[in-house]
């Protein structure tokens, strides 16, 4: 009797010791080599493109709750400018704009999810700022939308400027640059106010709409977009004052320059296509064009795609499936959308805007 209990006690012990040993051996080796050879740059081991190809689809982090940027429609399909960027990348990788899995992320969790590799790309109306680029270890692709932070108020509130908001409640979402810009601006103007801060964008707007806050602040495009979802959109006005500039850009994890290059040049392709006047409707006509710039761009001449690890006609594929920047803008934010935002700064540089693509050669 005693002997058997003894054996019962020893058996798991031996097992445990064995497990410990083998585990510690296994983990010791890679960490040792990591500290010896990989030193600070353990980064070229990332091979995002291969991982995506192996998986068979791109995983793209979006907001999912902002019409015009990324929004899950009643037909179960995502639409918006942020969504189209991911579709354009899926097109060059898989020849299929639907080879994308979208993940809805809130403002707070987005960077952690990207850092840990849960998503391949963050295309979620994210403002490009230095600290995110440097301290949070992200790499930004070119700006796809130049925005600015605005303030929305109720028409009958009598508020005309930021100074009128003294002592008033202002709704704002946490984890955004908006939160900090608001604090900066009000500090500059020496106006004390009551921030009412929420994690969830829906709750933020619902609280404003219930009357708890006298104003709400967000990127202007977001205000225009969310205003359409308020009970009485016409009762709310967006002040002309701008609190900041908000260049919105897709972001990827720092350290895989092949992947960063690919995302960067997909965005430039959209801009260049508009500059060259190529869109999804007239693409076929351009196949016989003799301009060497256009031939190189569309891949009928030269080997621009190779350097990026893509086929040479990647630009033609993008235009065919997703369209050029102008088409994407008009469809989601501009004249063919509910929001009807003027293009302003988001015009091509040739038309007085800020969009500019380096040469394709």
């Amino acid at each position, binding site marked *: 009797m005693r002997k058997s209990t003894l054996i019962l006690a020893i058996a798991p012990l031996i097992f445990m010791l064995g497990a410990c040993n083998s585990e510690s051996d296994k983990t010791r080796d890679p960490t040792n080599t990591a500290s010896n050879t*990989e030193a*600070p740059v*353990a980064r070229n081991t990332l091979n995002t493109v291969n991982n995506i190809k192996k998986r068979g689809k791109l995983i793209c982090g979006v907001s999912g709750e902002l019409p015009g940027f990324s929004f899950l429609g009643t037909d179960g399909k995502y639409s918006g400018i942020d969504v189209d960027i991911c579709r354009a990348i899926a097109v060059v990788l898989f020849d299929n704009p639907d080879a994308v899995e979208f993940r809805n992320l809130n403002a707070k969790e987005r960077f952690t999810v990207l850092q840990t590799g849960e998503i391949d790309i963050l295309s979620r109306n994210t403002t490009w700022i230095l600290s995110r680029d440097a301290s949070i*270890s992200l790499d930004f692709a070119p700006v796809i939308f130049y925005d600015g932070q605005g303030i929305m108020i109720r028409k009958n509130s009598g508020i005309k400027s930021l100074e009128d908001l003294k002592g008033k409640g202002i709704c704002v979402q*946490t984890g955004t640059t908006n939160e900090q810009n608001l604090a900066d601006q009000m500090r500059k103007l020496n106006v004390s106010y009551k921030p009412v801060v929420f994690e969830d964008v829906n*709750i933020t707007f619902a609280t404003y709409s219930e009357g708890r806050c006298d104003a709400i602040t967000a990127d202007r495009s977001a205000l225009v977009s969310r205003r359409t979802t308020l009970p009485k959109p016409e009762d709310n006005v967006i002040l002309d004052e701008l609190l900041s500039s908000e260049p919105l850009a897709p972001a990827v994890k720092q350290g895989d320059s092949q992947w960063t290059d690919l995302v960067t040049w997909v965005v430039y392709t959209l801009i260049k296509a508009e500059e060259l006047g190529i869109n999804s409707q007239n693409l076929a006509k351009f196949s016989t064009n003799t301009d060497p710039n256009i031939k190189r761009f569309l891949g009928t001449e030269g080997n621009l795609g190779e350097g990026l690890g893509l086929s040479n006609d990647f630009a033609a594929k993008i235009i065919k499936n997703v369209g050029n920047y102008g088409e994407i803008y008009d469809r989601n934010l501009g004249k063919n959308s509910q929001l009807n935002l003027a293009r302003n700064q988001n015009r091509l540089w040739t038309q007085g805007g800020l969009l500019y693509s380096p040469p394709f050669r």
Partner: protein
Amino acid sequence: MTHSKPPLWRDHRFWQIIVQLAAVICAILIVVILGLNLNRNLQQLGIKFGFNFLQQEASFDIGETILSYQPTDTYTRALLVGLINSLRVAIAGIFLTTIVGITAGIARLSDNWLVRNISLVYVEIFRNTPLLLQLFFWYFAVFLSLPNVEHKASVLGLIKFSQNGIELLGLNFSPEFSTLLLGLTFYTASFIAEIVRGGIQSVAKGQWEAGRSLGLKPSLIMRLVVLPQALRVIVPPLTSQYLNLAKNSSLAIAIGYPDIYFVASTTFNQTGKAVEVMLLIMLTYLTFSLIISFLMNLLNHTVQIQEK
């Protein structure tokens, strides 16, 4: 009868010590492995571990502060402001929930049909719906549905209600604070009510009869005879409810009350220091809980029967 010492491996105590030693070593190894793994991943991501960020300027605003706070203050200061806000709601909540819980628990045993059943309905509704849902209910259906500031409702001029919160004798409570406080109070009190009821019912019937035979009124029997005995049963599970209340206060983030978790998550979003900030939050709530446990153990000690 010469008793030679048995060999070491036949000694029961020897094996007990070995097993415990092995368990400790295993636990330490697991922690070390996890630590190394974390370190390696952070290195790969190019993130440096450290708490220096706490001295940086926070640059975000906090709506409710008891300590003075400016966006130019450090993250440490911001976190401290959040901590005070958490403590404020937790302490007030524990106080109120005790009162509401004991009242509802005693009411459950009332001879009055209406009182008994009102208490029953209250307990069943609040105990069986999620707290987060209740918070949204309090926030949107109760506090934000109050009249706006220009048309405040007032009770005898003492309490004034509006969308901007409750004004009580010159003190102003924001709707976010009030929501969290009342949400936590009524949710936790519904559990406490059941604990109190169970505690009272555990006191032998003879105690009531003895009290009555001494000519005491029912309210006096409850206060002097039954409740002190019931406390022995009530206090240990009450501790867990207090701990729940303190930890549930982290749901503040859903309704925009700037507690420690709220401030910490803004900090982590701005600095990208996920691991450090999570460690800080865990440490904070652990400290909270251990203090509550310690105090409740002292209380428990005084209500137990003292063996003479």
